[in-house]
């Protein structure tokens, strides 16, 4: 596996949320808006990369029979540090995520990568793996976050919880201007599907997204199956024709 493959495998092929269903608690709870989802993803990238590196450094020293306790201590240390840094530099984000920052400790993705990858590979590979898997997790969260926020408010906002690069909250995207071509004084937020901000909407939107992914996968499989069937039939036909030709030849030879 090359380094690039190692980095990008978490995006689609081994996406932690959509393929392995890891870390479902945060992906339901903090995806109410695009921004909280992005913030959570960034924190997970940090923790995952750092813990992967640390575990990879210690991998030959940690006795095998007590490796799970050692991993838990290391991960909890990094989560505590990340929580303090969030409190210091992005308090709004920390309040919005609430109890789900401490809960990164029990996110199965992080313990899983530690056990499956970092305990067996070199420091650089583990860092790349942690970073890539973290980005894949972020991608999953952001997709769900955009889906929910767009359905609930008709637009995407940035700048409320993450006070970086912008002075005041900005609307990244909104349906308002399209509709305002035909009508005046129209605010799409009044017509948002508010259910998608609530817990019920969280379950349903992930269900919808997963079923869409399943649908795509099944259609692809069906196509491949049909191609295969065709190939097999083609081969059979060719074999049959050859056989016939041979028989005809044998017949002709006998006569």
């Amino acid at each position, binding site marked *: 596996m090359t380094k690039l493959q190692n980095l990008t495998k978490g995006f689609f092929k081994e996406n932690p949320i959509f393929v392995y269903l890891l870390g479902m608690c945060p992906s339901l709870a903090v995806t109410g808006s695009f921004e909280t989802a992005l913030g959570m993803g960034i924190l997970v990238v940090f923790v995952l990369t750092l813990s992967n590196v640390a575990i990879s450094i*210690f991998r030959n*020293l*940690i*006795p095998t029979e*007590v490796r799970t306790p*050692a991993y838990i*201590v*290391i991960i*909890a*240390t990094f989560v*505590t*540090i990340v929580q*303090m*840094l969030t*409190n*210091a*530099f992005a*308090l709004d984000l920390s309040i919005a995520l609430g109890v789900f920052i401490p809960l990164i400790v029990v996110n199965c993705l992080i313990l899983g990568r530690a056990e499956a990858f970092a305990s067996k590979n070199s420091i650089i590979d583990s860092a790349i793996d942690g970073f890539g898997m973290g980005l894949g997790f972020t991608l999953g969260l952001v997709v769900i976050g955009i889906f929910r926020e767009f359905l609930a408010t008709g637009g995407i906002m940035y700048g409320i919880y993450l006070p970086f690069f912008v002075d005041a909250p900005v609307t990244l995207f909104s349906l308002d201007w399209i509709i305002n071509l035909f009508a005046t004084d129209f605010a799409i937020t009044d017509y948002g599907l508010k259910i998608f901000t*609530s817990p019920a909407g969280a379950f349903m939107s992930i269900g919808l997204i997963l079923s869409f992914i399943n649908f795509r996968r099944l259609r692809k499989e069906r196509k491949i199956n049909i191609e295969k069937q065709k190939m097999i039939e083609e081969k059979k036909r060719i074999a049959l024709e050859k056989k016939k030709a041979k028989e005809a030849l044998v017949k002709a030879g006998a006569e």
Partner: protein
Amino acid sequence: MLGKLKKAFVLLIIGVISGGSIYLVNELTWELIRDNQIKLEEKQYSVIFEDGVNFEATVLEGDISKKVEVYDESLNLLGYIFKGTRVNNYGRITVLVGINVDNEIEQVVIASTNNTPNNVQIIKSKYIMNFDGQSVNSEINYDAKTGASYTYASIQEVIEDSITYYLNEGGE
């Protein structure tokens, strides 16, 4: 035996490193975190008194945990903010009550809570503003004006405590 000692030593080192690094990061960040929290609270104060710029907070013992004197730019006293926390069946709730110098309730704000978000949302959007502008000298008729059956008793208790404190101590 030697192997066991070595393992114990490695685990000890991991424990010491994790404890030490958490301690160090805490040393570096706790002042920033405290400043942030003060800033956050001042933001809530300036929601109550829009012209408020200078805040002088006093920590108190008892039902009202904090008293804040609010001054505007030219150091005129605008009013007082009282902070109180209650525990109810739904969890914990912290309320800020602003009383201005005209003896009226300026505004009531829920500072923080772990109560059901839906409930809090309803109260925030519909009922809590009904306290605004009521005079604190006479008895407040909660039911008629504020929809008491929808507001938590906890919020009312904090408001009553604030008024009692204000009338007894005069905010001083």
